[in-house]
């Protein structure tokens, strides 16, 4: 837990405070291309002679806000679908689950690329599609837990005394979902970072000359033999971020042993 928190805090710190600490602007020419680390550029320069350190310090914010937003929207959407499906105990459940299956059929990156292909690389669109691709995964978990709870006496009691459905969903069911949801959000966040950074890596996310960790890896990989830090530094940041969020999810799931094993791939 402590390790995970420290890792996530480090990355958030770099992403938020980095732009203020950067010695150069991210697009400024500092030294000859692919220069090795020196006093002028502590992590060397990239293929256009820009300071790698400054670009790393500036390149985290896009990954951070996009993955946070996609996770939050996806979790909210998925929780709503899962609660309604699990509580309805009717054809609504079957239809909703079938619809989630349609979305699940697309690999998450492919779904994003599909919509980006014609509408262009717009960041809000990427956030929206990533969140839609998360929703079925969250929904299935929420539905599963809801179905377990819904047959318990306290729900029946609430129904008998005429508590409105909305209140049953929000006040009786949702509080029981907090712990599994926190685990799920941790896992979804790990995946969001991977997808958002991956889309930038593919060149369909944030566009040059802006600085972004995924984009940096893709831009600097041709110079790996000359100057490895242009790839290593953003790569380390993404790795620390995803391992951190995953450790957090793992820690929450272990502290609440009744949830059982969580599968990270689904």
């Amino acid at each position, binding site marked *: 837990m402590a390790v995970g928190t420290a890792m996530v805090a480090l990355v958030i710190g770099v992403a938020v405070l980095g732009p203020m600490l950067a010695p150069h602007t991210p697009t400024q020419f500092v030294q000859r291309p692919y220069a090795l680390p020196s006093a002028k550029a502590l992590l060397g320069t990239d293929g256009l002679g820009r300071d790698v350190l400054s670009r790393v310090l500036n390149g985290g914010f896009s990954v951070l806000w996009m993955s946070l937003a996609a996770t939050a929207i996806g979790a909210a959407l998925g929780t709503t679908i899962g609660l309604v499906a699990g509580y309805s105990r009717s054809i609504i459940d079957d239809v909703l689950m079938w619809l989630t299956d*349609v979305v699940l059929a697309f690999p998450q990156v492919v779904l994003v690329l599909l919509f980006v292909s014609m*509408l262009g690389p717009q960041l809000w669109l990427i956030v929206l599609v990533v969140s839609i691709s998360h929703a079925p995964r969250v929904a299935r978990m929420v539905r599963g837990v809801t179905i377990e709870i819904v047959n318990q006496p306290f729900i029946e009691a609430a129904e008998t005394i005429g508590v409105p459905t909305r209140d049953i969903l929000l006040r009786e069911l949702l509080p029981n979902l907090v712990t599994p949801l926190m685990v799920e959000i941790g896992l979804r966040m790990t995946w969001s970072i*991977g997808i958002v950074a991956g889309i930038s890596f593919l060149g369909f996310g944030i566009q040059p000359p802006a600085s972004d960790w995924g984009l940096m890896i893709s831009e600097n990989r041709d110079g790996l033999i000359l100057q490895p830090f242009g790839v290593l530094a953003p790569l380390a940041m993404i790795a620390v971020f995803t391992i951190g969020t995953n450790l957090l999810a793992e820690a929450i799931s272990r502290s609440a042993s009744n949830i059982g094993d969580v599968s990270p791939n*689904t």
Partner: protein
Amino acid sequence: MEREQNWSPVQGGAWLLRRALLGVATLLMISVVVFLGTQALPGDPAIAILGRDAAPDRVELLRQQLGLNVPVIQQYFNWLSGILHGDFGRSLASRRAVSGLLATRGLNSLLLVGLSAAICIPVSLALGGWSAMRRDKPADLSVWVLTTVLTALPEFIVGMVLVILFATTVTRLLPAVSMIPEGESPFYYASAFILPALTLVLATLPYLTRLFRGSMIEVLQADYVEMARLKGVMERRVVLRHAVPNALIPTVQGSALVLTYMAGGIVVVEYLFRFPGLGSALTDAIANRDLPVIQAIAVIQAALYVVVNLLADYLTIRLTPRLRTSHG
């Protein structure tokens, strides 16, 4: 699965038929999503492809080429009936039939995914089983640490680390770029497969390892395993004859998930290694706004998920006598 106890018992055949029909409905819905996401957007796809300041006669030509001059509903049915006949249209970039491109690129990707799965599945089973037998001992914990770290890492990070270690900075043992000249048999270019396959294996290994570990631990505590032990059956035999076959059943669905996950993973992995497969064909097509190719690959990717999962469901039923006879 939770609600299925409430259903009246159905025969495996009827259940399978129901699943197959649902699968067809899912496939249809997939085609609608792909069509809506690409062709039926607000605005003119022809202008989206050529750019805002394209000459009107070129736009008109492309509209005819793509069949955009009929109502949207009819465009959809024309496109769908083409797919059902194996005709995915013509690539806007190369002017070749999309189906031809899919065949050559698809073979490379199929080999890549097949090779990766053929490594991933046995290795994860061995690792998961080994870890389960040593539960909470140092070996188990080291597997836990390894899988926790690997699970968290996106494929392109894993792939870049491999490139740094084996193809550029640290050593140069393997090619960083997977060259398979077009028209030549991929079998002559084995070294092109090593790093991409290793990336896919490392990305999926943690999930299946943990799945099998959990499944083995559960089975090893089951009554029938205890019974066998009490009867004096040797531990080795208990594990191999009684525990493993039952613990393997959930890994059928797990392997299906690994396969579909790899099918998505090839997009990033093939781009990274410039491997000439379906995944890199998709990223190339998006860069060129090659609409028919994008549509075809998205449909194939999603259809694969439906088919693989249907097969896995079928296999799971065949392997579980309890499900085969009563409800399921």
